[in-house]
């Protein structure tokens, strides 16, 4: 049994009452679990269920709770599980169900142009919900407080999002992050008969995390259809995942260098990022690793890839990355600029449920490669790297050291990867019948990726939920920039490097 995937039988379990569900969340969080996913579903017209998946306190530990709620409102669970607050806003957007007592209930994705009664996931047969209310920015009041708004179209070549700063002088008192500009209805496109179209959509959830999302999606579909991939295919999946991690961490170091005007680092790492993406191209035929996975294994071009040339190129890349990284992170002009900037404390990170390198840089000990290991990571566990300070420098060091760990891990695993791993066959397939919930977890380079699918009696996917690590981490950025000057915001933003598309599903 793979520890990164779990199937829950929904036909057996009975939904909890709201207060029991609250207890389930409270006990889970108190016991060291984290909120993996939280979403709503309408199994029959007018009947609404809230699903929560928690886990991670022990390797492979998943727990599922489900509450039956009225189609209009429930009292918020953000009080016992602060990590649920964006999830509740998302449910409000999709179904129009109000979490009463929620601290900042604003639409997450549906801006002013949308009809107020448009709830994409609510069936037309269900009783009509109250119209969605308009967006209200939090207003900071006081002498000399002014607002600065940025976006959605930014000055750089990046995704759209809107930031509203409330400042006293140059100092940020509060930052409100308004996303939704990238909302493409991805999750609604993922319902239906399970098939390879899911994998292609998964690769387009967040362009820089194609491998992470496609691995999570492939394992989910395989568990659902009962066609696991062989160990060699699993090895190549993890290898591609680590190549993706190296490419993005190298790219982020370059991005940080750009933002502080350290041009040697900017040019050096931009070049190395190209080299790392070149390795993914050699393997998969695409710079971002698209087309790696098939249901039940790998794309037919990949089996038989010789590891030696990849190892050779990795060795050269490692020398250049290690040299450039050590020069940059020891340069006094770099250190003084990053140290103490954009500090996110461990307590805040834990309360908000921050995952991935951003969480580990604050000392939060979470890593899905250890907590929900896929077969290859179970066999070759990578070392979890932690920093304590939680500032931009810690996040830069976290990335640098994680990257070195990935090089070490790859040099260990690549020679053992084997040549097998072709998929059984492509196309869509019929899942066995019976109502189930399938959950799949993968540690992408940005943090924990969770895919969850509710399967109906006929074996079709009734609801598909994707949790990109960005969705957990965006609120963390708002806390990290407090008490910093507004001109440090780009640097703080880059040090988190969150996906807009992944959050706006």
């Amino acid at each position, binding site marked *: 049994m793979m520890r990164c995937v779990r199937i829950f039988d929904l036909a057996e379990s009975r939904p909890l009452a709201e207060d029991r569900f609250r207890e389930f969340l409270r006990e889970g969080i108190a016991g060291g679990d984290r909120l993996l996913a939280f979403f709503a579903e309408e199994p029959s017209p007018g009947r609404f269920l809230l699903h929560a998946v928690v886990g991670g306190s022990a390797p492979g530990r998943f727990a599922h709770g489900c509450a039956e709620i009225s189609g209009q409102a429930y009292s918020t669970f953000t009080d016992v599980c602060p990590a649920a607050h964006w999830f509740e806003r998302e449910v409000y957007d999709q179904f129009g169900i109000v979490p009463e007592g929620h601290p900042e209930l604003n639409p997450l994705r549906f801006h002013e142009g949308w009809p107020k009664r448009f709830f*994409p996931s609510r069936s037309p047969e269900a009783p009509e919900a109250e119209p969605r209310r308009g967006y209200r920015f939090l207003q900071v009041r006081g002498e000399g407080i002014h607002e600065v708004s940025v976006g959605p179209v930014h000055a750089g070549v990046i995704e759209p999002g809107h930031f509203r700063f409330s400042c006293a002088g140059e100092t940020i008192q509060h930052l409100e992050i308004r996303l939704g500009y*990238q909302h*493409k209805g991805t999750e609604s496109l993922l319902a239906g008969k399970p098939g390879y179209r899911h994998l292609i959509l998964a690769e387009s959830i967040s362009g820089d995390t194609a491998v992470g999302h496609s691995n999570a999606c492939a394992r989910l579909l395989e568990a659902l259809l009962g066609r696991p991939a062989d160990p060699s295919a699993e090895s190549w999946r993890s290898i591609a995942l680590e190549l993706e991690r190296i490419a993005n961490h190298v790219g982020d170091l370059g991005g940080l260098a750009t933002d502080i005007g350290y041009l*040697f680092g900017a040019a050096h790492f931009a070049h190395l990022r190209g080299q790392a993406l070149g390795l993914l191209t050699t393997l998969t035929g695409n710079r971002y690793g698209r087309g790696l996975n098939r249901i039940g294994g790998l794309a037919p071009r990949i089996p038989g890839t010789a590891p030696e040339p990849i190892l050779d190129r990795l060795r050269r890349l490692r020398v250049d990355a290690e040299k450039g990284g050590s*020069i940059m992170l020891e340069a006094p002009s770099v250190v003084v600029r990053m140290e103490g900037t954009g500090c996110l404390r461990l307590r805040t990170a834990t309360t908000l449920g921050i995952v991935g390198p951003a969480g580990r840089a604050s000392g939060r000990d979470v890593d899905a490669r250890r907590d929900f290991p896929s077969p290859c990571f179970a066999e070759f566990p990578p070392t979890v790297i932690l920093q304590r300070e939680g500032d931009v420098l810690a996040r830069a060091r976290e990335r640098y050291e994680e990257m070195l760990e990935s090089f070490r891990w790859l040099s260990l695993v690549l020679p053992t990867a084997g040549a097998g791993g072709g998929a059984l066959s492509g196309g869509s397939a019929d899942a066995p019948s019976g109502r189930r919930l399938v959950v799949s977890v993968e540690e992408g380079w940005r943090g924990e990726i969770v895919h969850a699918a509710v399967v109906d009696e006929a074996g079709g996917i009734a609801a598909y939920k994707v949790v990109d690590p960005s969705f957990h981490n965006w609120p963390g950025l708002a806390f990290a920039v407090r008490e910093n000057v507004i001109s440090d915001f780009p640097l703080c933003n880059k040090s988190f490097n969150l*996906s807009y598309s992944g959050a706006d599903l």
Partner: protein
Amino acid sequence: MLEAFTGRFRVGNTALGLPPEGLPERYRGAPRLGEEFFSGDAAEIGAMVCPTGAVDAGKRTLDLGRCVFCGYCEEACGGKGIRFTPDPHLPFGTREELVIGRTPHAPAVAAKKLRSLLGRSLHLREVSAGGCNGCDLEAQAAGNPNFDFQRFGIDFVASPRHADGILVTGPVTKNMKEGLVKTYEAVAEPRIVIAIGACAASGGIFRGSHAVEDGVGGTVPVDLYIPGCPPHPLSILYGIVAFFGRYPGRVPAGAAEP
């Protein structure tokens, strides 16, 4: 400091020569359509597996504006009839030209008026109008030391007021439509619009969702399409440079092979 200098010196000049040589064999660039596609059953097989409906079995065409370069059609027909090559050269002037068939299209070239005004340098404002960020990353990469499009006078600027045109990625989400129109209108005429990737041409894999406009063309007029999912930085570089007639090497002969 000295170490940084020697490090930089050791890596040296990293810009690729043009025309580039040696993209990996596996890279899925411009597809070639063989005889099996036009007289065999490759078109039917392709149409059956294509996740975005890019292959039209009736008309025997492949719409590169919808193609996400996943390669399923090539695998299903065993490489006979549809074959993806490592060729990154893919600029097209109109939405119709993206639909390739037996007759190859002439390469897209900018109208004379645009060419004389913008031919020597081109400053672009990038607008991400949805999309997954893949195309944005490739647009950014086209300016890095490996691809270095500044050597052709192309660059990204921070404001539409400084720009000669916009480069748009993504299917245009309903939430970004206004932002795109405002940015477009803020660019002084004559201006050009370059649409990058399958999403920008047709909505790509997101086509038909409740939240997208299925491409840039319905919102602002497009002068140049560069298909791909995402297109290689070389496709972007080559596409723009060829459009202005300034490419030192070959010109694309269209995507069909005789």
